[in-house]
């Protein structure tokens, strides 16, 4: 790819990673624009990774005020409450991230994410949203898809010691390298709506239990009009009931969604910092891959549960022939 040369300052700072992914990839990174929503622990880790890696710009959306949870789980938050007063989460994160890497423009966009129209997303190459309701995920994903250029879309959620990443790269071409062979590959990603509409009984037998459990929680919060994470142990009986209904409707054996797992997700709504680091690391890597065109991107879900320690990729898409 031809492009502006990297500056001397960039070459010095990024020397080590350029040796890993090449100058081309670095140039693409430095021209990319990224939007994130939901400044909690996982997104914070993600932002740290891509700011260090040297993306062009990063825009933060989160008008919420600082909470005690943010103070305890977000290393971008200054512990001094005076500094925090009057500023939103996004503004405080911006102030810290600006120090991380002066070559990356970090800015804040105020307003409600769902109020941004399609043209707003045209400014970005990558959109990452976290802790969003089912409706918001679908809506933002569709807006990204309406644009003529590709805007890579990701959702990320961490609850208890579990994490989930969803990826939509629409149509994505890349070179898969294995030893000396290079194969041109094309991946066709479903949207979030399309992915979660795939009938459960048509999925392979060993799909991660977390996939099903997260859908149950999502549906529950949606039906009850809750905000993401607005759930507690008292809700468990209703959640289990919903699970039963969904499993029956989808002809899935209920044992695929252990009650103990749902209980963990219902009670542990806070993020677990080491899981934030892991999910934020995987997500950072995926976004870097998608921007740089280097490496095999994951399609299209990633799950991690520190109870079994597995970090699993699941392809949840319609098994009909790809277009």
């Amino acid at each position, binding site marked *: 790819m031809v492009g502006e040369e990297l500056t*001397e300052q960039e*070459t*010095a*700072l*990024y*020397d*080590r*990673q*350029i*040796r*890993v*992914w090449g*100058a081309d990839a670095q140039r693409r990174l430095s021209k990319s624009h990224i939007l994130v929503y939901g400044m909690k622990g996982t997104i914070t*880790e993600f932002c*740290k*990774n891509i700011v*260090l*890696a*040297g993306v062009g710009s990063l825009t933060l959306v989160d008008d919420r005020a600082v909470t005690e949870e943010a103070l305890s789980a977000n*290393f*971008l*938050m*200054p*512990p001094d409450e005076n500094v925090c007063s009057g500023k939103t989460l996004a503004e405080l994160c911006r102030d810290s991230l600006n*120090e*991380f*890497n*002066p070559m990356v423009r970090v800015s804040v966009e105020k307003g409600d994410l769902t109020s941004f129209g399609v043209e707003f997303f045209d400014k970005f190459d990558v959109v990452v949203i976290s802790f969003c309701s089912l409706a918001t995920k679908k809506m933002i994903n569709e807006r990204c898809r309406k644009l003529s250029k590709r805007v890579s879309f990701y959702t990320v959620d961490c609850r208890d*010691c579990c994490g989930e990443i969803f990826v939509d790269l629409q149509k994505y071409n890349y070179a898969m*390298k*294995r*030893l000396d062979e290079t194969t041109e590959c094309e991946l066709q990603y479903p949207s979030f709506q399309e992915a979660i509409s795939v009938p459960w009984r048509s999925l392979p037998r*060993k799909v991660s239990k977390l996939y099903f459990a997260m859908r149950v929680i999502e549906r529950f919060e949606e039906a009850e009009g809750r905000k993401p994470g607005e759930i507690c142990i008292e809700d468990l009986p209703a959640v289990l009931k919903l699970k039963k209904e969904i499993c029956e409707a989808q002809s899935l054996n209920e044992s695929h969604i252990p009650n103990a797992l749902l209980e963990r997700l219902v009670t542990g709504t806070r993020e677990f*910092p*080491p*899981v*934030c*680091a*892991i999910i*934020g*690391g*995987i997500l*950072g*890597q995926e976004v*870097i891959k998608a921007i740089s065109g280097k*490496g*095999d991107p*994951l399609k299209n879900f*990633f799950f*991690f549960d*520190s109870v*079994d*320690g*597995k*970090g*699993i*990729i*699941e392809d949840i898409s319609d098994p009909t022939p790809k277009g």
Partner: protein
Amino acid sequence: MDTIEVSNLNRQFLFRQSHVGQSKAKVARDAVLRFRPHISITPYHANVKDSNFNVNFFKQFNVVLNGLDNLDARRHVNRLCLAAEVPLVESGTTGFLGQVTVHVKGKTECYECQPKPAPKTYPVCTITSTPSKFVHCIVWAKDLLFAKLFGDKNQENDLNVRSNDSCSSSENKNNVFERSDDEDWEQYGRRIYDHVFGYNIELALSDEETWKNRTKPRPMYSRDVLPDKMTQQNGNADKTDDLSPASAMASLGLKNPQDIWCLMENTRVFLEALKLFFTSRKKEIGNLSIAGNIVHAVATTNAIVAGLIVIEAIKVLKKDGCYRMTYCLEHPSKKMLLMPVEPFEPNKSCCVCSQTPLSLEINTHRSKLRDFVEKIVKAKLGMNSPLIMCGLALLYEVGDDLEKDMIENYTANLEKVLSELPSPVTGGTMLTVEDLQQEFTCNIYIKHREEFDEEKEPDEMVLSGWTQAPPEKKDDKTSNGNGASTSKKDIEVKEISDGTASPGKKRKLPEFSEGCTLDQSNDADETMNHKKIQKLDDDDDDLVMLDHWGKDTSKKQRSQ
């Protein structure tokens, strides 16, 4: 005892540009305290192998998290943790690969239970006369030339140091690496250049037999490549300020570290670098990174590994017991990017955690005690301050508080062949080798042997019982279906070197190499280790003990 460099900033979110040059341990402490003010963190800007970090020091901790970048330091900490009975969480990353393992005495294998990759050795003549691979050149540069220039000049080495002039002169013992008082740095550099790339090549060419079926090398002299004096060429030599690390690139105005230099540029860098290394304020040659086949660490893998370290550390502190080793893969295996593996039990024949005796084949009439100390005790057993006993007789010892006559005694012993020591060491002798700092003892059963294969056994010693990796062999054992494999050998992985997987091919999981750098562990091993000078990267490891946070980064692969 690392200090912060600009090139660290792309993956170290605790450090800023303004911290360049400062202690990593201290800056990390201050940075963590800024977002978490009420915890206690003590930074030590020191080498973990210093004697004050002894077993008692380690005993005060509930868990040790390693973020080291070389095999030597890892082995040292492993022994201290075993002796202090403190659980150790080991980690390493290289590129997109990473791993975390847990070592708990008596419950899981220790860091040294699994064979490490067999150190690759190269025959001396290949390195000095007929290099055919890139790595041969690196070994030549690191272990011969670099050592002669910056290491202990008296240490023997296979680089020819006699110049042609000295044959005719009266003082033909002259070492070309000695700089005479009336020489400036450029003259000195050019003389070295002409010697190693010119005269020594001519010398090699003179053995015509060697070149019958090989392409002949071409001798090079600096006057042909670079006729003019350097000082007249660089206008901007004053660009290097005292705070920035000495860099020939900077002072020569070369900007892009990824550029490929032509011969003339290489020559200028050689001469300039030599001058800077000798004249710069920064004499810490040991800290300068050395070329090698390095796969660097990146922020994302480090973050993932740091998360995994914390998960395991929490289990250790909760005495959970369900420890796991986890590998980060670049390409999924059985859909997994993060693959957990059940830890192995301690290896009963591990000479470190099970104290199993070793046996050593050696020519007791020819090998000196010094050879044994250098090649076995230090290089293979990784001891720092060894003590060697034959029965109750002390043959050798290292320490600060030794009597003068004892030191003389030991020094004399070093030069004696084994069978002529005060307590003769011959076939059938059992030697006890001990490191008091590591609290590690090893019994070695001596077997006398007359002859050794010069190419295959260049050390003229064969240590067995020692966990040395067999040459790579395919292992097609498949794992048991779902879930974590129970043997590391089941894991499907790719070559680290090119980071690609060969589909369907099972291969042993390479251990992710230390720290950012494969070269620090492997390369060091890849040298002819009998000729190995001193480890150049020995002392640049931080010891950072934080209350509940480990230094990220770095890995080393250990192999299985």
